[in-house]
């Protein structure tokens, strides 16, 4: 009984200290910010309730997009090698094959209407400033036309299965033009010097971001970088919730590849240790019964 009292005192003191240096300190150093918004409710330039016409969308895309963008899934290859594309535009323009699948519909429509406001990058590309974003605004299109384009992009997106392959495809489409992931032996498709000049600094290698930032932070950060890191030149990329989860899953598969092994080994080790502890307890009782 007395020993349990001592244990309770120690557990309380350790508990208070732990609470102070971990949950409480983290709460102070990383205050809660507004929750991730996967409806992108701040974007209202395009009426996304309009039903898109795929056939008209195809015409519009072929007239307006494929001069710069590849759409491999629809048979439109890239116009030039990555290095040349980066030299021409600053950054390699994305292949739009997965655009309809990974980007939120509302975001995509409003992005076409005005990329800079959708990306939350007006601090980097102010109106009348010296820098301009490589893609022009298509605010001359009608809402119906924009929704036609969106419908077409959604229709050409390849059907994908759940799993690691899709996680990688989504990551490549969403992050791979700027970020390297050395632990996956993957380099940003935009050459190093070009991306450094384009972004102002080399975008970080994401190999260990699942560990250094953690899932919770990434969840908010990818949804809207400005909320957690005001002024960053990383754009809001507009992933829908599912695509974002796939990106984070990929980061975990690369950055914390032993997670499953760790958890299953952990259970076994703890069962084994518990058996040891119980045997030790029984032995101790036997031995001490002779001296008490």
């Amino acid at each position: 009984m007395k020993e349990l009292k001592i244990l309770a005192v120690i557990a309380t003191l350790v508990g208070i200290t732990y609470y102070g240096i971990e949950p409480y300190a983290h709460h102070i150093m990383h205050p809660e910010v507004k929750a991730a918004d996967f409806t992108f409710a701040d974007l209202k330039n395009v009426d996304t309730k309009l039903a898109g016409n795929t056939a008209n969308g195809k015409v519009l895309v072929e007239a307006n997009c494929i001069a710069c963008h590849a759409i491999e899934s629809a048979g439109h290859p890239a116009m030039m090698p990555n290095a040349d594309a980066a030299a021409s535009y600053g950054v390699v323009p994305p292949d739009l094959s997965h655009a309809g699948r990974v980007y939120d519909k509302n975001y995509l429509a409003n992005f076409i209407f005005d990329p800079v406001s959708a990306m939350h990058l007006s601090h980097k590309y102010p109106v009348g400033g010296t820098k301009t974003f490589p893609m022009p605004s298509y605010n001359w299109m009608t809402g119906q036309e924009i929704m036609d384009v969106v419908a077409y992009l959604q229709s050409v997106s390849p059907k994908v299965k759940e799993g690691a392959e899709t996680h990688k495809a989504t990551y490549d489409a969403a992050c791979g033009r700027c970020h390297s992931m050395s632990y996956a032996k993957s380099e940003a498709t935009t050459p190093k010097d070009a991306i450094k000049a384009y972004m102002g600094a080399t975008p970080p290698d994401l190999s260990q971001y699942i560990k250094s930032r953690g899932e919770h932070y990434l969840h908010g950060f990818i949804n809207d970088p400005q909320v957690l890191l005001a002024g960053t030149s990383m754009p809001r990329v507009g992933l829908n919730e599912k695509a974002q989860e796939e990106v984070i899953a990929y980061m975990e598969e690369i950055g914390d590849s032993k997670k499953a092994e760790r958890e299953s080994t952990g259970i076994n080790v703890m069962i084994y240790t518990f058996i040891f502890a119980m045997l030790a307890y029984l032995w101790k009782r036997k031995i001490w019964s002779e001296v008490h």
Partner: protein
Amino acid sequence: MAEFKPADSLYEWFDQRLGIDKFVKVMMTEYWIPKNINFLWAMGVLLTVMFTILIVSGIFLLMYYKPDINMAFDSVNYTIMQEVGYGWLFRHIHAVGASVVFLIIYIHMFTGIYYGSYKKGRELIWISGMLLFVLFSAEGFSGYMLPWGQMSYWAAYVITEIFGGIPVIGGDLVVWIRGNFYVSDSTLTRFFMLHVLLIPLAILGAIVVHFYALRFPHVNNEEGEFFDFDKEADKYLAGDKKGSKVVPFWPVFLSKDFFVLGFFLLFFFYLVFFHYDFAMDPVNFDKADGLKTPAHIYPEWYFLWSYEVLRGFFFEIAGISGKSLGLMAFAFANAIFMILPWLDRSPMVKPANQRPYFKYWFWFLIADLIVLTVYGKLPPTGANAWVGFASSMTFLVLFIALPFITKAEAKKIGGK
């Protein structure tokens, strides 16, 4: 020269040459420990086990770790954590073990203070123990640098910078420690040497001294009672096991330790597999970058209290800069525990709660150390800075007051 008879068995052959029987008696079966103890007396064995676990896991890490600023980070986070079979397990055990070993050290240390196990013949146990604390601190600090993450780098930067505050030699000393003008490859390599060779050797030596220092004054007991160990041992050997006040180290004392160890390891492995962030700070999974200061720099949790004493003095007093005052307070905080046996002027060896004045001092100290630890992590701005100052001052005052408090206590109990 002793005469050797031909041995009848292999055991006897060794016994003739090594005196195994005698050795086992001296070290185990007739090494006497008081019976009146609780589970806090198991901390020494827990620490021995933890140190062994750290050495073994460290040896495995050593086979793949590369002490070079261009390779260190990836050798840990890619090679060891992801490529080597169960490399992650050894790293988790090593990192979490290094943190948990300090939890046990603190429990061990404050058990000693609570029960007065540092005086009346036990001074050298205390001093060798505090020496071990210093060595473990150096071991923890040098090891934390090796993964070459952001916190490795900046903690090393801030802590080595502290030595710059020492008058006259400070500037040169910092360069001498770092092997360069800034924290660099030479710093990493020498900290590697310290971590895997010099400090572990010193720790092994200090452990031997610590154990040996226990032999003559004997282990203290729950009531601080002094009795004749030889008489009690004879009683035990004569068969009066229940009446004797002592038990042998093996198997009686160790059976209890193994039981405590079992449940401790359950807690330890839970942390290793499922709750390791407190010991493997997420910030340290960013590679060291000397041009990018992290938003918050803090040491590992076990250094927070003394770190807070260091930065608690943030303004000038009587013409002495806050930095110098902090450094003096920091030096005081790290040295003062060493001379605790001479600061406690009361002859009473009893659990703190049975001592009329000391009990208040003890619980005040615990509370103050917890406040220092918590505020050592928080950003030192606004009210936090003043809490830091007040708790640092409290720490100093507590130790300056200790001789007077215990002197008064001695008078009070002497008068009875």
